[in-house]
């Protein structure tokens, strides 16, 4: 029980840290990292929910949701990084900022 509480609690903590970082840090790359920390928090919480004690097998549904969520988060992160790279490249090479 206490393990589950610590796991779930740290998930909520990560979620809030991510939210805080997203709000206060203007650079978009930091916002992207913040989102990933938030995601880690949500997935942590879901994994904690799946725990049903040492003897019973874990609830497979939250585990599957987390796997799906991770792939979605990876895809979104990849796309956002490509956007950021494109902005950096434009910034370096040309002056027409419009």
């Amino acid at each position, binding site marked *: 029980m206490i393990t589950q509480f610590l796991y779930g609690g740290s998930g909520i903590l990560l979620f*809030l840290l991510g939210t805080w970082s997203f709000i206060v840090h203007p650079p978009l790359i930091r916002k992207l990292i913040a989102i990933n920390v938030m995601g880690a928090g949500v997935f942590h919480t879901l994994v904690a929910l799946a725990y049903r004690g040492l003897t019973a097998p874990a609830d497979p549904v939250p585990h599957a949701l987390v*796997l799906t969520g991770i792939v979605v988060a990876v895809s979104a992160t990849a*796309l956002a990084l*490509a956007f950021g790279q494109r902005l950096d490249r434009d910034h370096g090479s040309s002056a027409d900022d419009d």
Partner: protein
Amino acid sequence: MTPAWAKVLIPIVLIAIGAVLVWAFSLAALEGGDRLALIALERVPESGVSNPITSVLLNFRAYDTLLEVAVLLTALLGIWSLGPAAPAFQPASPILGGMIAWVVPLLILSTGYMLWAGGHAPGGAFQAGALLGAAGVTLALGGDASAGLPGETRLRFLSVLGVLVFTAVGVILMALGYGFLTYPEGYAKWLIIFIETAATLSIGVTLAAAYLGGEPRDERTSRSAT
């Protein structure tokens, strides 16, 4: 920048939200009981695979997984639309090159094992696809400009293979009268392996291509030629 009052207020508000969240989740966890665990675990034998998580991903909630493979494809198409890739890394030194020559075949071998293991133990299409993608990333880090990926036509085909097979299996089963993504009895195992193999290839190729960034190779060379 963030004004001074916000610097104080935002943490306070977030701590308050955190307290509510911890309270709500504790209440919920205490009252939650077994949730879907018993229902899901009870029906795992009917799902065609013995790993409960694979049962959920590829059978009970297969439609979620289909959309998830589509999300991965969307990210890749979005990355391709942003223009050419950054220049490749310089070729690896002989020592690194030798290591890559060892690691990449091992990664591909592990991909096959991980895919097969997913049916009864932790593993499955995504873990296998991630290993395959890692093989591509390793090649790219060693200076291979194409990360071992094929030319444009085949690359495009491989990247959509997962969504294609998944949706086509769903629609064909529907047309046969079983219902969308409803596996007929006795065929579930093989259909799941079929879908997972296609998905693994697509995921691996997509991750490697996303790491490279930029449009597929043939398109780029033909444009720089004109």
